[in-house]
Structures are given as structure tokens and as C-alpha cells.
């Protein structure tokens, strides 16, 4: 009997210590969405169960190891106990009760996480090996003053703070997965068109920039498939939309820079001279580019043009082929390509 009392005390102590540690240690990233609050609350519950059951078994075990070990010169066997149906029933029923309750709160937290807000704005997320692209629909003034919707693309996911957003997830090739640790949310992105579009609802509550990272292995550069998410105040967000949706009436190079932004070129090409996934653009124009077939070409406008619309035509030495998306010919207008080239030329 005395043994039981001692062990029970030890179990309680160890549970409390372990529980306090788990609940207070910085084990989770910053909490940047309303959904995260619910999730973290549930984590809190789990920590305590983990603390309890781990202590329960381990403390009992260690206690037995210390107290019930065979002393020097001791002979004979342990106490003859074959079991106890009463105990067995207890430790079947109690866990059943616990898991049922767990399942219940599991269900309620899930519905919290998925609660819909009618005001939610919509963003279309396009995933392809290995880039993210985000499309917004914005109302703009047409010639006749009527408002028409134009779609704008961006390589960063810009979100208004404290406003629920519905992310409609499209994949253009294989399965990817949308994951922002700070939001505590994840949803696979399926190929196959409308029928396979999945939605993810998130309500940011912290301004700042985070990273969306692809969480489902999707081939060679899966690890590098990331884009930045910036949560900004509503006003700033609206301004950004307007600015993006406006016709680009700056100089060619400036427009080129914007397209390079929005079409995700800069995800792979630095303009600072460092090598990301693709060669840097700094000083590219006019330079002698070594190709993987051993030859070299001078990077004139024409070469750069082909490199954009048909990347695999010439592969730069030391870089994999088939990495750069093949479909920019469709995605970009000829004018945009020209402007991007102008931008690249400006990088000397």
C-alpha cells in the first residue's frame, strides 16, 4: 500500500513539472492567425495528457526498477499475481472516456478552425513545380466608368489583417501543400481543375511577413518551394491592390521589374549577384554565358528572349534543365517579355 502512495505522489509531481514545462516552453512558432489560437488551445490540452500518461507509466516503471529489483543473494520469485479484472476494466474504461472527450473537443476545435466569415475575401493560389502564384480579382474603372474585374498576379501573398481570406488552391502539375506554420494550417493542393480545388480559410491577426512553404513532397526542388506572406493593415492592402491593378505606365525597365516580381522570376533569379535556383541577372546582359554543352553564347536580347520563352533551348552550365517553368510564353505577353528584358539589361 505504502508503495502506491509514494508512487502516486511522484506521478503527480512529475506530471505537474512536465506539464508546466511543455505548456511554457517555446515549442510553437508565433501565433499569427485566429485559427492558431484554437489550435494552440488544443495543443495545451494534449500537453497535459502527454505529461500525465508519460509520467504515469514511466514513474511506476522506474519505481519498480529501483524498489522491486532482485537484491544481492536474493533467491526465489516475485509475488504471485496473475492479474485483476477490476483493474483491467478501470484502465479500459477511463481511457475510453478520455478519448471520447478528446474526440469531442477535437470536433469542436475543428469547426472553430473552419468557421466561415461571409465577409471573407478570396485569393486564388496557384501551385506548380516549384513556385507559388497568387491571383486577386480587383474591381477597376473601365472606360465607360463601369467597374470591371481585372485579375492581378503576385509572387507574394499579401493579406489584410483581421480579415478572413478564402484561399482557393489550384495545382498545375502534382500535389503540393499550402503550409504557414505561424497560421497553424495546412491544406494539400490538388491538380485536376475546378473539381479538385480545395479551400483554406485563414484570418490573420499579426502584421508581419511570414513564409508559405510547400509541405507535400513535389519533386526535386520541393524544399525550395516557398513564397513570402505579408500581413498588412486593410488600408495598405487596398492601396497595394490598386497600385498593382493599374496599367503599368512606368518606364519599360520599371514595368519589367514589376512583372519579374509578380511572375515569380525573382524567386529564382537574384538581381544582387548571388545564385538562388537560377543564375543571377546582375550583369547577365552582354556577358558570356557558358552552356552545359560546353559552348558559350553572348547574352544578347535574343538569347535572353529564348531563355524566357523556351528555357530548355539552351541550358546554362551548372544548372539543371526543366527547372525553370516552361510556360512563360503563354503566361507573359510579348510586351511584358520585352519589358523584363529591358529590366535585365538595366542590371549592370
Amino acid at each position, binding site marked *: 500500500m505504502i508503495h502506491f502512495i509514494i508512487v502516486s505522489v511522484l506521478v503527480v509531481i512529475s506530471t505537474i513539472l512536465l506539464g508546466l514545462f511543455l505548456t511554457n516552453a517555446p515549442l510553437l512558432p508565433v501565433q499569427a492567425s485566429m485559427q492558431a489560437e484554437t*489550435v494552440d488551445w488544443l495543443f495545451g490540452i494534449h500537453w497535459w495528457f502527454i505529461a500525465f500518461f508519460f509520467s504515469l507509466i514511466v514513474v511506476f516503471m522506474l519505481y519498480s526498477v529501483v524498489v*522491486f529489483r532482485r537484491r544481492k543473494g536474493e533467491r526465489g520469485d516475485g509475488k504471485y499475481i496473475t492479474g485483476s479484472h477490476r*483493474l483491467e476494466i478501470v*484502465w479500459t474504461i477511463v481511457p475510453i472516456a478520455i478519448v471520447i472527450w478528446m474526440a469531442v473537443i477535437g470536433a469542436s476545435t475543428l469547426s472553430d478552425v473552419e468557421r466561415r466569415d461571409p465577409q471573407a475575401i478570396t485569393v486564388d493560389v496557384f501551385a506548380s513545380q516549384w513556385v507559388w502564384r497568387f491571383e486577386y480579382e480587383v474591381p477597376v474603372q473601365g472606360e465607360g466608368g463601369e467597374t470591371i474585374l481585372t485579375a492581378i498576379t503576385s509572387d507574394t501573398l499579401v493579406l489584410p489583417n483581421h480579415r478572413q481570406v478564402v484561399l482557393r488552391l489550384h495545382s498545375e*502539375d502534382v500535389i503540393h501543400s499550402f503550409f504557414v506554420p505561424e497560421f497553424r494550417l495546412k491544406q494539400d493542393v490538388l491538380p485536376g481543375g475546378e473539381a479538385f480545388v480545395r479551400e483554406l480559410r485563414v484570418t490573420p491577426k499579426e502584421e508581419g511577413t511570414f513564409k508559405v512553404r*510547400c509541405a507535400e513532397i513535389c519533386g526535386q526542388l520541393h*524544399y525550395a518551394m516557398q513564397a513570402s506572406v505579408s500581413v498588412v493593415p486593410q488600408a495598405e492592402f487596398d492601396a497595394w491592390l490598386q497600385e498593382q491593378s493599374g496599367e503599368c505606365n512606368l518606364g519599360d525597365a520599371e514595368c519589367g521589374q514589376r512583372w519579374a516580381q509578380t511572375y515569380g522570376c525573382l524567386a529564382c533569379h537574384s538581381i544582387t549577384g548571388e545564385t538562388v535556383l537560377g543564375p543571377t541577372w546582375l550583369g547577365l546582359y552582354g556577358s558570356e554565358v557558358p552552356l552545359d554543352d560546353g559552348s558559350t553564347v553572348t547574352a544578347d536580347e535574343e538569347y535572353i528572349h529564348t531563355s524566357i520563352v523556351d528555357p530548355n533551348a539552351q541550358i546554362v552550365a551548372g544548372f539543371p534543365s526543366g527547372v525553370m517553368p516552361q510556360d512563360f510564353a503563354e503566361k507573359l505577353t510579348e510586351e511584358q517579355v520585352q519589358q523584363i528584358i529591358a529590366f535585365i539589361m538595366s542590371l549592370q
Partner: protein
Amino acid sequence: MRFFSTSLFRGLVAQILATFVGMAFAMAIRVVVGLPVSSADPELQKHITEVIVIPGVIIGAIGFMVGVGIFKDWFKWARGKPTSDNHDPDPAKPNWMRYFSVDYDHKVIGIQYGVTSLLLLGIGGSLAMLFRTELAQSGISFLSRGSIFEAILSKPWEVLAGQQYSPEHLFNTMMSLHGIVMIASILLGVGALSNYLVPLLIGARDMAFPRLNSFAFWINVPGALILVSSLFFGGFDTGWVGYPPLSLRAPLGMQMFLIGVYLVGLSSISGAINVIVTIFTMRAKGMTMFKMPIFAWAALATAFIQFTATQLIGLSFQLVMLERLLGMKFFDATAGGDPILYQHLFWFYSHPAVYVFILPGLGIISELLPVFSRKPLFGYRWVAFSSLGIALVGFFVWAHHMFASGMSPYLRLPFMYATLLVAVPTGVKFFSWVGTLWEAKLTFPTPMLFVLGSIVIFLLGGVTGPPLGTIATDLHLHDTYFVVGHFHNTMFGGYIFPFFAAIYYWFPKITGRMYNEKLGKLHFWMMWIGFMVLTLGMFYVGLLGMRRRVVDYDADLGFDPTHLIMTIAGFAIFTSVLIGLYNIVRSARRGAEAKGNVWNSRSPEWQIPSPAPLHNYAQPFEVVGEPYDYGLPGSIYVNMAPAPSGPPGAE
């Protein structure tokens, strides 16, 4: 050199020949029906190579089986020739040759399984060491271009699969291969345990179907070879789950993965049927189901899962192969297929499979605890039924791997409930173990250390299950290192540690010699501590959002130190296992004689001389008591009389 006359050697030669014959055959057919046998377009060329190589590989595998001579009797029967039932080895052959030849003795087959399993463990572990080295710090350095890996692999990849070398692809390949090779290793280890132990424990002279039994082992050999060869056929970068559409685009190595795993699965199925029939029909006199040594229950529950669920991973893999070879649109969503379908078929096996990994291990724990506590197993029937319970519930939880997959939402809740329910039978086991330890007379030789260590580790793996089981938290944890931590704990606690416990425990029975206790303890502590460090690190980075299956991670996430420590810990585990193997190999030759009932256990296999003679028991014994009545004076479990040797029962 006698080796050249072993089945193994003949099989390998036959496999190589058959592979080329098969390829030639496939090519011939293409020529006949007027399809191109080569093409300038690299994409088309890849496909052509594939449809020519794959038939070769399959026929090669069959060739191996014919070569080892497994079908001999069946062919005879088919030609109406009489076949003998005397499976005894040819006394002319030296003993070592039996292990490289088709042999029908369950103990030999058990060893064959075990050694193959260790080899795979070695391969898988070495792969882990390689990619852990890459992960030790952020940035891609170890595998990078110009490393020896490129020197070794770039040519074969280029030639065989039209795949050009890249460190990322190599990492993905090694990571995926590590996963699946380790799982194959477990499946073989499970085969080793149930083949060696079940007949001994229930007092049978052999398994029910000896021919099928050795077939089940040998099919693993071509399976493993093909599986590992994928490393040279361009690898595959899909993880061990091989989700389409990615697995439809992966290089030729993908097919090697599919075929290899399929063959191993075939082995699981036939092996499992054998185990079930053996346990149901060959128990010794007086051994009712509830008087079997508890491991037999575990083996039974395992077999139930294996011989049913395995079919579906086989099917899902075949469908992927068909889609790759013939363009049948099962999973290509753009053409009417459905990628989610694959995930359901795959996990319908692969979740129950994880219980295949652990049930035998847990059986070992329950088997050894009473011996070293000198105390009855607490609640025998409950422990026995909990195995069945786990196996049963395990069939209704598969979609918990798919909470984030975008399957129909209404499926999620029921699967969450079922998933959490598994905690209950598992819990029963833990509590009963604690009950067994309570007021015992514990001793701590190496096997016991491994048992106790595995309880802690498996517990850690288990309690991290529910956070994955509740959807809201899983949405954060899915595909992070937290999951990786979870399953390494469950697999080590539920399989690796008990497996080594079993090796040390039955080592005297197998070899008639004693292992080295000091090295054994060293092995345990190094492995246990190393492992704890490794997986606590995994949990930590996982919670902070570290994704799985990435070759590199942003330095500014601040994971570098943790990853470095994890890598070091990984190497500690690796060395510890090396020490263990050294111990085994050395003691097998030089260890002190250990003939009698080393652990003074009650169970029958210890009442006969070691190593156990052919056909185990000279006379059939009779069960007259409970298996685990330690501490009950004068009780015995089995009555060996008239026994050729050994004292009746334990005192």
C-alpha cells in the same frame, strides 16, 4: 568453392540471365508489332526504356525463384510426379550451406529472414547516415555537385533513366529509400521472429507449409535487390508513400520501388497464411489458445493484418505501374482519374501495416517481462485480446494520414474518433506491463534493458499519436518532423528495441553460446540515449514547423544546432548497432557455452538442448499448466516427459 553450388548463387545467376531474356523478349515484341525501340526525343526514350526494362525485371525475379529451385516440387506435382514429404537437409552438405540454400526447417528460415533483415537495416541505416550528414547544417554541401555521389551516380542515372544528377534529387531518393528499406527490414524481421519462434513455442515440429514458407523467404531476396537497385535507376523522389501524380513522373527507379515492395508484400501474405494455419492446427497437446505463450497471440494478430491488408498496397502499386506503362488513367486527375483514390488504397494497407511492425515487438515485451520479473504476466487474456483489438481497430483509422489531403470532409471526423480509440487497447498493454513489474524480483541482463528501454520509447511514440489524431492539431503537424519523431519512436520502441531484445534473449538458444554482457549493455545505453536525443530533436523542430522531406532549410529558422546534434545522435545509434552486431558475430563463435535453461524460463523451447535439434521436440510434450505461473510453487507449464534432456518445467 562450395558457395557456387548454393541456391542463392544459382538464383542470382538465373535472375541476371532471365532479366536480359525478358528485356530481349519485350524488345522483340515491340519490333514485331512495329513500335519504336529507341527514339531521339528524350521523353519518349525514357518511356521506351521503361517498357523494355520492366518486363525484364519481373521475369528476372521469377527467374531467381526458379533458379533457387523453390518450384521444384510444385513442377513435379504439376507433371504428376510424386513428391516426398521428407524435407530434411542433405547430410552430405556442410551446415553453413543450408543457410544459403532452399531449406525447409523453420529455424533455418527464421535465421535467413533475420540476417537479411539486418542487412537491410544496415543499408537503410547507412542511407540515413548519409542524408543526416547533409541535414547537419543548412545549405547543400555534402551531396552537392562534384561530390563523389555525382561521380558514382550521374552516369548510371543518365544511361538507365535519362535522369541528370542533382543533390536535391539524390536526397529525396535516399530519404525515400531509407524509409522503404527500413520498412522492408521490419517486415523481414517480423518474419524472422514468427518463423523461428512460433513452432518452438507451440510445440510444433515445423510450420504448416514448409515449401510455402521457404518460398515466402526467398521471394524477398529478388524483392530487396530490385528495391535497392532503384538507387541506380535514377532513384525516385516521392517519399516512401509514392503518391501520384508525382510517382507517375518520377524516373525509372520508381518502378523498381513498386516491384520490390510488391514482392516483399507477396512474402508477407504467404508467410502470414502459414503462421495462422500453424497456430490453429499444430499446437501441442493440451495447449488451448489461452495457454499459448503470449508471443503466439501477437504473431496471430499480426498475420491477420498481413494476409488481408497487404493485398491493397499490392493493388495500388500495380495500378501505378499500369498507369506508367500503359497510360491507364487511374490517378491522373486531368483525365478522369483521382489522386485521392491512391491515398485511400495505400493507407488502407499502410496504416494497419504499422501495427504489423509493432505487434510482434510488443509480444516480445510481454513474453520477456515475466521471465525477468519472476512473476506472472499481468492479465494474460487482456494482453492477448488487446493485440486483436489493436489489429481490428487499426483497420478503421487509415484516413488519419489524409486529414490535410482534401478528401471528402465528412470522412474526417469518424476517422478521428477511430484513431483515438486505438489508444485504449494499447494502453491496456502498457498498464499490464506495469502491473507485471509491480512487486516483482527484477533482474537486468541486456534483453531486459532493451525491453524496459523500448517501453519508454514506444510510450513516447504512442502519446504523440493523439495530437496527430485530432484534426486541428494535425493540420499544423502533418508532414513536419513531429510526425517523423512520432513514427521513429513507435517503430524503435515497437520493433527495433524488442527485436534486439529477442536476439539477445534467444541468442543462447540459437547458437548454444552466450553473448558478451558488457558489450550488450554498451549497445543498449548508446542506442537508447542516442535515440532519445535524435527524436526529441525531431519533435522540437517539427513543432516549430520544420517540414519533412526537405534537403535544406532556411538558416534563419535557427534549426542548425538541433540538426547537428540529431546527426551526431544518429551516428551514435549507428555505431551502437555495429557494436551489437560485432558482439553477436564474435560470441556466436567464441562465446561461453550456454546449453541449458539460461534464463530459467518456463516456456518449452528452453527445456530442450540448445541449439534446438531438427524438428525441435524429440517427443511431443504436453501442456499441464499456465505459461507464466512464476512464483507459484511446484507449478509447471509443459510436461516434457519422457524428456530426452532438461529438467521438467521451471521450478
